[in-house]
């Protein structure tokens, strides 16, 4: 059958594409290291040993991988329906705020397990709500989701600062270091010796698998794809684009909200101003590099966190700024967009 052959050549193409992306990013980074006067090989070595050299480091990487992957999962939903959910950052924050709210309420009375569970539920709903507002702005008010989402990011950040310096301030005086720490029984339990939360890890894997299933196997997933491809045609075929936009945004925001909850319960154990650690924005890059597929996202997210964690070594070892990780990530994404764009152009030139 002819169409099997088509599949094979596309696999070859994917491999070539990946090679080109990695090659370009590697070349750009090496060039920059040369210009900075640093030995490229040792820089790459420290990046590697700094992120995967010890179990402690690996645990640190996984702790970053959890929120980043959750955000990436969410973004695949919104990208699938053709939306640029820049508001993911605000959705992480909204989830974190909602989780903190639940924890503060429950700190007095409830059993830790129940309260933590409710905190995650609250975070999920908080992030969802934040995203659905952007969705409503789009379908009812015609506000582009990029602008709506960006606006909502600022609102979320503002609310966080107000809470930290206002109603939720530490006894005495509010501070940039955040709210008061929760009592340790409300921290997500970690593996002894490593600061890694098995619950967070399991949750992330479950969300990943669940999302892959929803996107690939369910009518909802296919509807999102159809609407993302051509809303007019999807409507004529009987789908409901507006309703699906709200669903996709709700799911995207829910994932981001879980990421925010993890930041609060599993990492900082309080609400801090920079609670999102910019994982929302970084997840946008992850998903773009994954070519909007969920299958590639976890590996790329892992690699990105490795770069972030590994780069912390650079200032000490090579007197290089740790922003090198950002340069590598940016170069990778730009190279990827270039390759995808080029491939698409070649395809349209041929037809």
């Amino acid at each position, binding site marked *: 059958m002819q*169409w099997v052959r088509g*599949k094979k050549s596309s696999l070859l193409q994917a491999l070539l594409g990946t090679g080109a992306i990695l090659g370009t990013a590697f070349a750009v980074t090496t060039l920059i290291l040369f210009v900075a006067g640093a030995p490229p090989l040792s820089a790459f070595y420290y990046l590697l040993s700094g992120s995967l050299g010890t179990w402690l480091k690996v645990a640190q990487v996984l702790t970053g991988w959890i929120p980043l992957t959750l955000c990436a999962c969410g973004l695949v939903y919104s990208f699938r329906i053709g939306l640029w959910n820049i508001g993911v950052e605000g959705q992480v924050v909204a989830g974190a705020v909602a989780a903190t709210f639940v924890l503060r309420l429950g700190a007095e009375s409830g059993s830790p397990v129940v309260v933590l569970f409710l905190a995650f539920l609250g975070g999920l709903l908080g992030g969802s709500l934040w995203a659905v507002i952007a969705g409503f702005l789009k379908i009812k008010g015609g506000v582009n989701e990029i602008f709506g989402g960006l606006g909502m990011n600022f609102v979320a950040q503002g609310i966080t600062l107000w809470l930290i310096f206002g109603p939720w301030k530490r006894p005495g005086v509010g501070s940039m270091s955040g709210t008061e720490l929760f009592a340790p029984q409300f921290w997500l339990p970690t593996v002894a010796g490593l600061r890694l939360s098995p619950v967070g890890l399991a949750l992330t894997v479950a969300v990943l698998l669940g999302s892959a299933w929803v996107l690939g196997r*369910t009518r*909802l997933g*296919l509807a999102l*794809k159809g609407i993302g491809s*051509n809303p007019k045609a999807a409507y004529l075929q*009987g789908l409901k684009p507006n309703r699906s936009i709200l669903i996709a945004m709700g799911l995207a925001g829910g994932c981001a909200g879980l990421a925010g909850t993890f930041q609060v319960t599993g990492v900082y154990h309080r609400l801090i101003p920079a609670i999102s650690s910019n994982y929302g924005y970084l997840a946008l890059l992850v998903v773009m590099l994954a070519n909007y597929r969920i299958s590639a996202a976890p590996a790329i997210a892992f690699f990105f966190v490795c770069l972030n964690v590994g780069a912390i070594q650079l200032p000490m070892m090579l007197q290089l700024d740790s922003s090198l990780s950002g340069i590598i990530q940016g170069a990778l994404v730009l190279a990827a967009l270039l390759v995808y764009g080029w491939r698409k152009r070649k395809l349209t*030139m041929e037809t």
Partner: protein
Amino acid sequence: MGITLRDIHKRYGTVHANNGITLHVTEGSIHGILGENGAGKSTLMKIMAGYVRKTGGTIFLDGKPVEYAQPAEATRLGIGMLYQDPLDFLSLSVLENFMMGRRGGLSSGKAGYREQLKDLADAFSFHLDPDRAVRELTVGERQQLELLRLLALGVEVLILDEPTTGITSLQRRLLFEALKKLADGQKTVLFVSHKLEDVEMLCHKVTVLRAGRVSGEMDRPFHTPTLLQWMFGVPPAPPPCAGGRRGKLALAMEHVSAPGGRTGLRHCSIEIHEGEVVGLAGLAGSGQDVFLRVAAGLNKPREGKMHLIGENMAGKDYHAFKARGVTFLPAARLEEGLMPGLSITEHLALRQERGIRILWNEAQKAAFQIIRRFRISGNPLSTPESLSGGNQQRLLLGLIPEDPRVLLLEDPTRGLDLESVRWVWQQLVSFAAGGTCILFSCAELDEILQVSDRVLVFYNGMMVKDVRACDTDLMDLGQAIAGKG
């Protein structure tokens, strides 16, 4: 300027779209390129226009071999192409579009171009308001503008791809006169079409393509049966004629007015019965487009009543119409009808209505079935953008749900060759035989007369004529369309 093609090849993967085409077009002649969909006409023209790279072969201009790989280079050499869908800038004005692609300093004054546009338009009796937005023009007017723009760029060889699709008969006459004038002025015209009538009326010489090769060449006067044989192998039979039947009332409108399109729809009252095939005639955008969308529940009527199989549809949305058995197929297949990037299987999977999970096996089975039944040259993994226009239309027909009650079709055979047209109508008529009522708009009066039981004529947003197909003829309809009914 004469143009010669020698042994042109174009391969898309395993498909050999042009397989050794050799062709000479004399300066000052109108040369027709005939062929059914997928014969390789468009590919060959796009190669000439620099829009597609050829895999092999040589192009000669006035005997000298030339190489180019971009439309702009082709234009510089004097070759310009008028695409089936004009490639203009909708938000800009006529004058701004006319100035597009011109080389000149920053100082290039608008006044000069305005003068040039007016002179050129007058020379061909085109009426174009330089300050109107291109968005508001008809396809025919946009085509006129594009033609003038190419001429102002100094194009010597003009390629027209299916130029008479979607334009009015007056615009067609103006176009043909303009092309004759151009040929008299030693310009070379390549006229690509699948409409024999147009080619026979206009061209000095015709080359027929079939399956990527030249299957024949003929000078005026043309022998139609031979041309048909070259195009199709065997001449196709005319579309089958649907008999007159009258079932229960399916769709009724009472004084319906609705906004939309250029004219909207005004005070339309009509009753359509099951099994009726109703052709909607009229100049493009005379209200028949709005009528179809109102009947589909896509445009909301401003006033009036509408009943669908006995139920009052006031205030209901498209989904309610769809649930009652209405199916609407848009003319813009790739823009409105199909979902690029989704395979045929995925298109079919989206129709599954129960459960959370997709039953992929069922969807694939359905895909194979539709591919076979509707003779789509593709496979379950094919995406619509990889299919030719004719196959896209076949897929769209394949997506019609089981047992539709009311089928609303916008120009269902646009851009299809005779054989496909005949086949499409066979399918549609079989729906009608099962009690479906079919309403379709169409730019070709012949086709409307051949397949309809009943014809509605729209003019300026009003339905001005409602007549049984056997009680009318081309002249009669033509007058009504022009507002003289």
